[in-house]
């Protein structure tokens, strides 16, 4: 590529490969807010540079810019990259010691152009640069210096008022250096014109005198709308073309004190009109060849240069009458930090920032469509073209974009949600309850406010606050989120108790996400997360943590933690750490690494509990022993088959701990204290920490089956299996240690029906500990120790969900629209069939007892029940359905009947029945539950086997939008609750009037929920 200056009768022109070209140039640079002149884009990774160039060069190309001016630190490859992709040339500018230079290895901040050593160092460097760039495709000009004439007497880089007195001696030295430099360049490269970058036309006589061979006179010109005589002066004095190496206007009105991008556009429109008019053959000087607008984006560092780098200073630093729109005599009006043709945002975490073209960009985009050298481009046409362009017409683009940008900036911190929950309740009870006989009225106010912080698109945080006003004390279900702070919400209220001050302000939820190229970070507090069971967590160390309303009810502080998920080279790595990763978890750290080898996926996990959890409040979140676990899992998938095997090492901390166990005597009588058992003492060994599990799944279309088996040492416990295999069966494997177990099931699909039987067998390796009372014989002075059921607070292992069981299950599903899978957790809203449903029969043969569960006292203190309910077979039948029976109507729900045992020690077997239903019609929602002889709503009801003969809940509400599962919307509703009490119910008096007496309680209320 060859660029040269041609002359004829019309004037002077730049030709690139023989084509007349007007330099529609831009002083381009990239410096994020907060950085200054020392920032170097070229030191960044190539991908980042490309991202920047793709954006900016695309905008420049679209505008019609065909050249940029860059300093000589740009690597040649990027000049070519820009040219090849965008057709934009680059003029390389050697600064010639303008801001200091390294001479003999030492930085000289103020160059003495008369010093031979300084001159030599500069010229040698220039020569080297020429050699490195001269064959670079896309190179246009050689530019030398940058207003070096302004630096002859100044000792500061600060751009200040133009100099008043010339230092001719130093100028002589400067321009002789330029003369030598021009010769040096032209001696090595004749394909690219050479220009100096002068400060206006100062010392132009010295230029003429010393800069022989100069191709183009480049000048940084800030004369306002017109350069006036400059073109003629250059032509007559130097006889070369004039190139504006800098020119333009700032976009800030120093007089009015606000941004004025319209004025900037008007100045630039006039300046470019003049350039066009001064080009060859337009009847004027004929030596204009274009210019480089100063500049692409605002330089936030210009004022101060080392300080206030992140402040967009509005301080004007020098006066200039050439810009009369904001000139006031005696005041500065040039705002150095506002010269950008585009404004810019703060950068993201990678240093990338968005830009917003000002009015001048759009105006010049139109102007540059005019070819300065087209045969029909006459002065008249030029005037007509430019005068037709009104800056105000283009202002709307910038104004709109700027408004959006400002809105986005405000979005960095915003109120993202708010809701008010106002409820009023009337409640009472019959004389056969502990409730006051007269009706009581009370109310609850609860307010939620969500604040979202988004400092960058890849970083988001949300905090939800809750503030409570009054909290109703008359609710039948006495525990709810707003009762937090009560010392003991459990049990009937004692009217003599002093009022308890509540925690009125609380953090309800919080979450954080950071998405980076190499990882993702998710923090959560009382929100939720899924398990890792489908990604190799074969032993369920990282459990699902979506708890619904029960978490609020007990004010649980889970899940609480952070998960790191690797990407790219770290793909497959996950780390989780937190005080309570799931409800009841000890403070722990879990690491998982999964990698695929063809059809095999190998997963290794490690967990280390860091301390014992101390804030467990209910038996929903049973305390756990501090454990260390390591697992490995290999899963091979081939065709319709999947085979998974895994091993676990768990709880080595328990090795060496004593435990007792029993063996039944052969006769069933005698033995230790006549209990029928021999009692033995042993210690946990290392192999008791080990376990293994294998699972085979076949999915062959209409017929599918699975079989699974596991053998786990006494303390080789993990978590319960939360994955769904084939279909949503109820019976799944327990994650506890101390068991051998097997599961198998198959599904057969016939039309819209699925038949799915499932069987479970499990047996603890060490049976539960029976209760044997101690005995003291005073006659012999002998004491025989007593024993009781094990529990997790005192023993290294227990028999609970791993109790001996032979279970059978038959699940029948009717789903005519299998595309919306009936097993989905949100089928109530997702299922689209006219009618879909399931019925599930479960029978468990439980020939032995289990060990003891944990309960909680009213003070919140955990304790172990002294025994378990007796051995008991139990059965359950559960039916579910979803029906879209008419337009806008949807009815879903479930019914059940079955037997259950208390979690605590009470031996009474509960045979219960009931159902729930959810009916929606447009924006109306009706939900109801009818329960017969069922436990109350709280954990302690099942712990202590507290049942009600009849419970009825109802809620009828109307919303502003369609009801969506688990989404709080604006609703106005009426709710009610009624229940009867008997001797097994909470709140039933110990001495009722009659043995068969029953009581009743009711609550009715209205609520209003207003939500954003």
């Amino acid at each position: 590529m060859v660029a040269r200056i041609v002359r004829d009768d019309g004037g002077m022109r730049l030709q690139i490969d023989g084509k007349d070209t007007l330099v529609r140039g831009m002083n381009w640079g990239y410096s994020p807010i907060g950085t200054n002149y020392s920032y170097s884009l070229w030191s960044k990774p190539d991908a980042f540079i490309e991202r920047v160039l793709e954006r900016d060069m695309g905008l420049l190309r679209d505008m019609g810019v065909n050249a940029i001016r860059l300093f000589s630190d740009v690597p040649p490859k990027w000049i070519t990259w820009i040219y090849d992709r965008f057709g934009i040339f680059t003029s390389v500018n050697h600064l010639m010691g303008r801001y200091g230079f390294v001479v003999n290895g030492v930085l000289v901040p103020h160059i003495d152009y008369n010093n031979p050593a300084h001159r030599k160092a500069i010229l040698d460097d220039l020569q080297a640069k020429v050699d490195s760039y001269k064959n670079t495709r896309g190179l246009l000009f050689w530019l030398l210096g940058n207003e070096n004439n302004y630096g002859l007497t100044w000792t500061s880089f600060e751009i200040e008022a133009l100099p008043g007195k010339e230092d001719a001696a130093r100028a002589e030295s400067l321009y002789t250096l330029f003369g030598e430099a021009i010769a040096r360049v032209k001696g090595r490269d004749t394909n690219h014109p050479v220009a100096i970058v002068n400060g206006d036309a100062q010392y132009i006589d010295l230029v003429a005198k010393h800069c022989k061979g100069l191709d183009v006179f480049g000048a940084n010109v800030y004369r306002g709308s017109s350069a006036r005589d400059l073109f003629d002066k250059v032509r007559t004095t130097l006889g070369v073309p004039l190139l504006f190496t800098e020119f333009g206007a700032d976009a800030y009105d120093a007089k009015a004190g606000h941004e004025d991008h319209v004025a900037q556009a008007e100045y630039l429109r006039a300046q470019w009109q003049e350039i066009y008019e001064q080009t060859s053959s337009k009847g004027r000087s004929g030596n204009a060849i274009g210019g480089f607008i100063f500049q692409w984006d605002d330089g936030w560092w210009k004022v101060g240069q080392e300080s206030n780098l992140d402040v967009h200073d509005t301080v004007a630093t020098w006066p200039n009458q050439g810009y009369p729109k904001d000139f006031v005599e005696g005041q500065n009006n040039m705002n150095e930090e506002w010269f950008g043709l585009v404004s810019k945002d703060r950068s993201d975490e990678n240093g990338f920032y968005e830009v917003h073209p000002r009015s001048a960009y759009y105006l010049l985009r139109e102007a540059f469509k005019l070819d300065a050298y087209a045969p029909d481009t006459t002065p008249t046409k030029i005037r007509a073209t430019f005068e037709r362009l009104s800056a105000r017409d283009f202002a709307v683009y910038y104004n709109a974009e700027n408004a959006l940008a400002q809105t986005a900036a405000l979005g960095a911190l915003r109120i993202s949600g708010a809701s008010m929950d106002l409820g009023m309740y009337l409640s009472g009870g019959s004389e056969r309850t502990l409730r006051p006989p007269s009706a009581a009225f009370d109310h609850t106010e609860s307010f939620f406010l969500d604040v979202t912080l988004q400092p960058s698109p890849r970083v988001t945080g949300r905090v939800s606050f809750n503030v409570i006003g009054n909290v109703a004390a008359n609710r039948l279900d006495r525990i709810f989120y707003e009762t937090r702070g009560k010392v003991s919400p459990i049990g009937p209220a004692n009217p003599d108790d002093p009022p308890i001050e509540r925690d009125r302000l609380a953090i309800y939820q919080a979450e954080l996400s950071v998405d980076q190229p190499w990882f993702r970070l998710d923090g959560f507090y009382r929100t939720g997360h899924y398990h890792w069971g489908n990604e190799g967590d074969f032993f369920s160390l990282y459990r699902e943590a979506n708890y619904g309303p029960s978490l609020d009810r007990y004010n649980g502080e889970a899940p609480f933690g952070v998960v790191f998920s690797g990407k790219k080279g770290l793909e497959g790595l996950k780390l989780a750490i937190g005080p309570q990763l799931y409800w009841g978890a000890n403070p722990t750290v879990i690491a998982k690494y999964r990698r695929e080898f063809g059809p095999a996926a190998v997963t290794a996990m490690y967990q280390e509990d860091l301390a014992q959890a101390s804030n467990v409040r209910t038996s929903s979140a049973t305390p756990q022993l501090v454990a260390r676990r390591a697992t490995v899992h290999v899963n091979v998938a081939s065709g319709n088959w999947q085979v998974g095997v895994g091993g676990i090492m768990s709880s080595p901390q328990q090795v060496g701990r004593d435990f007792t166990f029993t063996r039944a005597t052969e006769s069933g009588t005698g033995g230790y204290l006549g209990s029928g058992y021999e009692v033995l003492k042993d210690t946990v060994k290392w192999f008791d920490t080990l376990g293994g599990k294998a699972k085979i799944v076949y999915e062959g279309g209409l017929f599918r089956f699975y079989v699974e088996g596991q053998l786990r040492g006494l303390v080789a416990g993990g978590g319960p299996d939360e994955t769904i295999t084939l279909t949503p069966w109820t019976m799944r494997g327990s994650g506890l240690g101390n068991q051998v177990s097997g599961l198998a099931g198959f599904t057969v699909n016939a039309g819209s029906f699925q038949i799915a039987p499932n069987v479970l067998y499990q047996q603890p390796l060490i049976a539960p500990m029976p209760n044997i009372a101690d005995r003291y014989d005073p006659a012999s002075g002998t004491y025989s120790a007593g024993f009781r059921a094990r529990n997790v607070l005192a023993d290294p292992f227990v028999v609970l969900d791993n109790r001996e069981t032979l279970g059978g299950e038959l699940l029948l599903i009717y789903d005519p629209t299998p595309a919306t899978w009936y097993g989905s957790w949100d089928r109530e809203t997702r299922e689209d069939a006219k009618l879909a449903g399931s019925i599930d029969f479960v029978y468990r043969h439980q020939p032995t007892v289990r060990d003891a569960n944990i309960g909680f006292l009213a003070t919140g203190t955990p304790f172990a029940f002294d025994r378990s309910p007796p051995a008991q077979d139990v059965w359950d039948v559960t039916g579910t359905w979803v029906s879209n029976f008419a337009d806008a109507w949807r009815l879903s729900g479930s019914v059940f009947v079955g037997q259950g045992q208390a979690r605590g020690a009470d031996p009474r077997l509960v045979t219960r029945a009931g159902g729930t239903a959810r009916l929606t019609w447009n924006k109306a929602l009706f939900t109801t539950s009818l329960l017969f002889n069922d436990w109350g709503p709280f954990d302690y009801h099942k712990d202590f086997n507290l049942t009600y003969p009849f419970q009825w809940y109802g809620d009828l509400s109307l919303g502003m939008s369609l009801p969506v599962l688990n989404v709080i919307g604006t609703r106005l509703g009426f709710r009610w609750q009624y229940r009867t009490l008997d001797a097994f119910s909470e709140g039933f008096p110990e001495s009722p009037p009659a043995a068969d007496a029953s009581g009743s309680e009711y609550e009715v209320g209205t609520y209003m929920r207003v939500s954003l």
Partner: protein
Amino acid sequence: MTKRTKLLSCSFVAALLPVLAAGCSQDATFYYGDSLSDLRLSLYTDDEGIHPDTSALEDPMNPFADSALGPETKWNIQAGEGAIPAFYVWATVLAREPTGEAQYYVGLNLGAAYLSGDSRVEDPEAVRDQAIRAYQTVLDEFPDSVTYDATGTITYDLATPAYQGIVGLGGTVQGGWFLVTTENGQKRAVKP
């Protein structure tokens, strides 16, 4: 055997090998009754029997450490055996469910063991000091604690006998307690 089959087989065997060893313990020992008459008193730790220490549950000499104590066991031992078994049973109760009553009886039995001159008490002076500490702990940690008579209805405060116990063992009561005589002539420990 294909590479895939080998991989699967190796993984399966590796997973199952450890668990085949599970539950193979052969080291269990049988439980029998313990004779309390030969029981010796040697404090297992410096704080054994002093709330909030629970080292009594680790004391190999303690025959009650592993036992699920019946509700009457401590009283039966207190009434039927000497001070040494009674100390252990009350120390066990104290470690499991701290009460002033249990702490008092720990002090009472340690003091009685010291005063008995029983040769089964290995370090009488240490036992005396521990008895004084136990009494003092009643005053410091359980100043309002009481015990009941056999009917469970009449209460007796424990601060006064704890005070007297310290004095009786030649100790000095700490913490600003005084012994006063009430209008009906009874002695009573008070803390102004």
